[in-house]
């Protein structure tokens, strides 16, 4: 294993993580909800529509973060390394899997682990291993 020191950003990573943890905590304390983004979106889709107000507001906040971060010099347009077919397949898997597994990186990885949920610990380990395996196959087994 070698560390990619040129791209290593521990301080902004930690600071960003603190903001994410603070937002997730505030969501639990103020709204009484787990800030799992896939779950927030899923609640907007029929037939399980429930409490659209706070969900839409949360999504709007996420969307507004991009231009605001841009003003602060923190964000740039995302650059995707993969082609369209791969992106579409990835999106399908992320949406399908997040719902089937009852959460994503934010719901299980941040909120669930913060709540010391065994379910979320298992889910987080499984999706990390799957993601490590896919990137390994993509970068080191092809060609």
């Amino acid at each position, binding site marked *: 294993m*070698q560390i990619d020191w040129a*791209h290593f950003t*521990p301080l902004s990573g*930690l*600071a960003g*993580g*603190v*903001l*994410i*943890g603070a*937002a*997730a*905590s505030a969501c*639990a*304390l*103020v*709204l*009484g909800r*787990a800030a799992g*983004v896939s779950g927030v979106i899923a609640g907007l*889709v029929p037939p399980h529509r429930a409490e659209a*107000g706070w969900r839409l*507001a*949360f*999504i709007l906040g996420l*969307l*507004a*973060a*991009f*231009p*605001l*971060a841009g003003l602060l010099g923190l964000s740039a*347009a*995302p*650059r995707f390394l993969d082609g369209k077919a791969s*992106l*579409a397949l*990835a*999106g*399908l898997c*992320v*949406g*399908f*899997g*997040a*719902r*089937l*597994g009852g959460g*994503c990186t934010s719901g*299980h990885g*941040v909120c669930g682990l913060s*709540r010391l*949920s065994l*379910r979320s610990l298992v889910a987080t380990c499984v*999706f*990390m291993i*799957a*993601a490590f*395996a896919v*990137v390994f196959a993509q970068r080191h087994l092809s060609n």
Partner: protein
Amino acid sequence: MTTLRNLLSLLIGLVFGLGLCLSQMTQPAKVQGFLDIAGAWDPSLAFVMGGAIAVGLVGFNFAKRRRRTLLGDPCQLPAQGRVDARLISGAAIFGVGWGLAGVCPGPAVVNVASLDAGAMLFFVAMLIGMAAERLVLNALAGRNGAVVEED
């Protein structure tokens, strides 16, 4: 009260999104650099997780003891559920998608605001995947006469 709740929700989403931008979770290359442990590994995202969980442990420790939110509404944090095949297969499929594109649902939403074509494509595919899960589970439940459990 509802207006205040929605306003606070907007603010929470904004802070969440700023955290994702600052930590570069919104950059697929950054995420995939973290997932590539066999290559030139960028461990930055471990610091993101660490920072988020360190703060989250404190916040959720308070939240778990409360029956009502700070606004006085009933708490609706999910109950501790079982570890079952559905959880594990869902997490595995999710992980495959996350590894393939380097994007998870939070950053997928934030990136829509960049109006980047790839970001839009991923977001729409993700919504279709979510709807497909619902259809598949409903179809299976219909065949087995079982009721679909909801998280």
